[in-house]
């Protein structure tokens, strides 16, 4: 059902965990599907120096969170903002149609972590 790339990220997910002194935290959840995701970012000079995640969810949810952390790491805030769910799905060599809703979460979580960072840095 899943591509090789998805299974790879599912079985050996990258960047699992929390960042103790994170600059931004994004939490999203989709109770209808049962996927929940938290993304932590560490920002230095406008660049995402570190990105970590924790996910409760299906294979697609875990693989997309792992993939997006890899894609976002090293990017500027502006670049990271532009990552869409389709980008994530493409990097994963596709996701089954029924799983598209889970893949929304990763991009949403990253965005919400960036929002959190921006809000914190305003004050």
């Amino acid at each position, binding site marked *: 059902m899943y591509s090789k790339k998805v299974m790879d990220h599912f079985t050996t*997910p990258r960047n699992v965990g929390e960042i103790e002194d994170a600059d931004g935290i994004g939490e999203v959840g989709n109770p209808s599907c*049962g996927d*929940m995701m938290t993304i932590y970012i560490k920002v230095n000079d406008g660049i995402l120096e570190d990105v970590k995640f924790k*996910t409760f969810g299906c294979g697609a949810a875990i693989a997309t969170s792992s993939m997006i952390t890899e894609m976002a790491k090293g990017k500027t805030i502006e670049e990271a903002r532009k990552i869409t769910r389709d980008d994530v799905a493409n990097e994963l060599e596709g996701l089954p149609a029924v799983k598209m809703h889970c893949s929304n979460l990763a991009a949403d979580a990253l965005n919400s972590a960036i929002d959190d960072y921006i809000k914190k840095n305003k004050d």
Partner: protein
Amino acid sequence: MDHAATTDVDPDVIDAMLPYFRHYYGNPSSLHSFGAKAAQDLEDSRLKVAKGINARPEEIIFTSGGTESDNLAIKGIAYKNSRQGKHIITSKIEHPAVLNTCRFLEKKGFEVTYVPVDNSGIVNIEDLKDSIRTDTILISIMHANNEIGTLQPIDEISKIAKTNEVYFHTDAVQTVGKIPIDMEKIDVDLMSLSSHKIHGPKGVGALYIKKGVSIEPILHGGEHERGIRSGTENIAGIIGFAKAFELATSNLENNSKKMLKLRNHLIESVKKRIPESYLNGHQTKCLPNIANLRFSFIEGESIVLMLDMKGIAASTGSACSSKNLKASHVLESIGLQPEVSHGSIRFSLGKDNTLEEVDYVVDSLETIIKKLREMSPIAKM
């Protein structure tokens, strides 16, 4: 460990079937000797299935499987008796073959009461009694549930049905070969059976219809199966089903004892070794082969995928792996919130599983659950 979904076909069953593709391909309705042989073998098969549940051969109608049997029983009674009443009672945890048939009938002007179950999955008898009306024509309650394995008190239910002069149908697809069924001892009017859960071929099954009970056919045609189910009989399939039925019912006691021991070992080991793990369903009023286990803080599809990579087949009621993105209606009916039912996994043992295999499952589960919980934002451990 996913034998409630389907089973491999027994080699003896395949051997019994093969000649019916190669040599005895006669149509039981034909007058020539090929046809006569097929007709004779069809009746022998009917006898075998009847014997397995201590019924009369004329009470067995062959169908295309459990789904058709459920449809035929419920629609057949509903259409035949709609002048006496249009109310049907069933439970909230039936197989979709029953639930969706009832929902269909609701669109056709019937009324259906879906009786709730307690948190082990047993139908609430008082609710059942209270829901009977003067226009109730049928009660359809499954013998054993396919997701959690809970057994229903069908004796008690059949008495309620008799007292109120209501027909009683039960879906026994999961019970054949696991729990002894004796039609002389239980008062059931209609009972659905399927072949592929008992090491028989797919696409064949039967509906038991008690002598004297009359139903309306749903397939009209050449009046096969005494006009109740038209269509040239699937001879090879029926031969295979009958053989599988014979094997399943004659070895029932040994197989069931063995599976029950393995089931209980699985449940005990998991509970002992994996924190925050629970059994869904009933500890003892259950099929000997199903253990539906729930693990907090994680999601079922990822457990199933990881088990699959270790060569273990299991299934989940998790929403994310279902077609409609809804959590299992059975788990919801036993009072589980979607957040917790997501982490439920059904293991269903087969007669050939071993203790070593069960231990391997438990070892694998321990590793998998730990790994997934480390990834989970809601795990508090």
